[in-house]
């Protein structure tokens, strides 16, 4: 027979569990996905998470948005019991994570969606689930004829009105490589890029510390033309800032954003389920639409809306207009480039 004391204890425990709902789930499996902060997190919460829950019979998932460097630091600090199951990276940090043995290869042979990704997105170390696209951004109130080439940044009429970022960001580094290519260089010959940057100095109103800071400078009229990230510009535009995005005739710089299973993750199956969902045409189609405007990597997604209008009308068009860079080569030299930028680019 249950004594009154036992009954009391039981009800107190239940009450405590009611108070701290996290406790009862502490033992249950839950997937931790380190996405990017801001609009990426919003998009993933709204579209990817429901798709994942549907596919896994309501498995628990936590979005823990953080910078790539924090993801790497946290996983490195606890390799055997990583606090993150799935990482999301720009090309530079992705290579660092792979080199340091932090990620597990994706089981591509058993994947339903992997084979449908366009060739550039297929990476065994972790497939690309979206592209980030860098083109020219300008203020249409001040610049009446839209720019058509990266070279327009050097036009004398933009004296003191152009902006760039330093090499800390993927955008800044990718831009340097692109202008090096334009003036006869390449990933392994960056010299023409630095020369071009030096020539750009009279036009520079700002060397922003990061792409976010650069974007806000349009708002203040500090900058009228700059390289810019398609998604960042859409956010500004939605808030009524006068900015437009165009793909220069040399092509837009495209970065693969890759998703990785963390090595030694206890939730490997759930991680695979999340990545499958992220690659699926369904999720990518929804993410492509307004307000998310995430550039799809699955060839089965039919381009439409703003992305079809501004970036590429289909996958074939995308291949023509997007330029992918060799980040393996870039990563090897990035430290030297940053050092050189530190020394040479003073306004």
């Amino acid at each position, binding site marked *: 027979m249950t004594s009154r004391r036992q009954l009391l204890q039981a009800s107190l425990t239940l009450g405590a569990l009611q108070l701290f709902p996290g406790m009862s789930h502490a033992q249950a499996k839950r997937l931790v996905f380190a996405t990017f902060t801001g609009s990426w997190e919003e998009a993933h919460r709204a579209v990817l998470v429901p798709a994942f829950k549907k596919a896994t019979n309501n498995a628990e998932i936590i979005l823990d948005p953080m910078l790539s*460097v924090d993801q790497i630091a946290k996983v490195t600090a606890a390799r055997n019991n990583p606090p993150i199951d799935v990482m999301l990276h720009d090309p530079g940090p992705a290579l660092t994570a792979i080199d*340091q043995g932090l990620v597990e290869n994706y089981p591509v042979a058993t994947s339903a969606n992997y084979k449908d990704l366009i060739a550039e997105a297929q990476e065994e170390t972790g497939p690309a689930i979206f592209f980030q696209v860098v083109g020219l951004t300008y203020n249409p109130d001040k610049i009446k004829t839209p720019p058509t080439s990266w070279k327009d940044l050097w036009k004398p009429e933009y004296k003191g009105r152009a902006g760039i970022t*330093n090499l800390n960001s993927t955008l800044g580094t990718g831009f340097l490589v692109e202008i090096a290519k334009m003036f006869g260089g390449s990933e392994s010959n960056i010299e023409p890029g630095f020369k071009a940057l030096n020539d750009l100095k009279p036009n520079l109103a700002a060397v922003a510390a990061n792409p976010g800071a650069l974007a806000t400078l349009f708002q203040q*009229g500090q900058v009228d033309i700059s390289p810019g990230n398609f998604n960042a510009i859409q956010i500004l535009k939605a808030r009524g800032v006068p900015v437009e995005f165009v793909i220069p005739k040399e092509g837009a710089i495209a970065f693969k954003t890759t998703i990785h299973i963390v090595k030694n993750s206890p939730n490997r199956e759930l991680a695979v389920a999340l990545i499958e969902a992220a690659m699926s045409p369904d999720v990518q189609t929804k993410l492509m639409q307004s307000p998310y405007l995430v550039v799809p990597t699955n060839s089965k997604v039919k381009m439409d809306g703003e992305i079809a209008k501004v970036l590429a009308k289909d996958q074939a068009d995308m291949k023509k207009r997007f330029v992918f860079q060799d980040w393996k080569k870039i990563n090897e030299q990035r*430290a030297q480039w940053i050092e050189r930028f*530190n*020394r040479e680019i003073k306004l």
Partner: protein
Amino acid sequence: MSTKKSLPVTAYPLWLASPLALAMLLFFITPLLMLGVVSFYSDAAMTQWGSVANWAKTLDGFGLTVLLDTLWLGVQVTALSLVLGFALAWSFLRMPARLQPLIIFIVMLPLLTSVVVRTFAWIVILGRQGIVNNFLMDLGLIEAPLKLLYTRLGLVVTLANVQLPLMVLPLITALQRIDMNLSDASASLGASEWQTFKKITVPLALPGVIAGCLLTFSAAITAFISQSLIGGGQMLFMPMYLYQQVSALSNFPFAAAISLTFLATVILCVSLFNMLGRLSRGYANG
């Protein structure tokens, strides 16, 4: 009445500090020691230990320039804050008592807002279409907008404003403690106002000046957000140098060497200020 000898009431047994000491040891000293160990790896992947390459690189010609430039920025900001802060503290003590709480509130206001918000406010003020430029153009003093944002001048002014409360509050306290009769006495003995200020007020306020300078200086040289948003990506100070190595290059060993160098320099500056502070107290009281 007991004649038993007891400890003075202001002396507390040292062991009461042991929980704090333990916490400091665990969460502050240990990570610092680990940072020291990490700094001796020669490669970013941390496989080769026992090299001083990172230290050599931190203190080479370029690294040293960055360090000195960071300290120079601190000096510029502190000097400007001191001038503005002293004037403010001086007039604060001479204004009607009912206005004083209002002024204190205004002085404290920046401390109550996030540093990011304060810094963005300055972007709005200094931008090409910002308040300063629009005002000067409306007056017809300038033809085209001046470049204020992303310049050294803009950065110094912003930092001075952001750190002003740290300067003003110790100054007010120090100036408040000065007996007004001393100035009256000085005046009655025939000293001019300037002489009184130089010979009486400044020396007596010195402890406050030094405390304010110490706080402003250390806050200014470590102000990563303001430095990067107002100074921009082409100005390199120690916090940004450190951040760059970690965030863009994942080069933790070099970053560790930079941060320890910076830490040692800041500690050196702080002890220097402290020494001056002790000397000045002796001066003020003696």
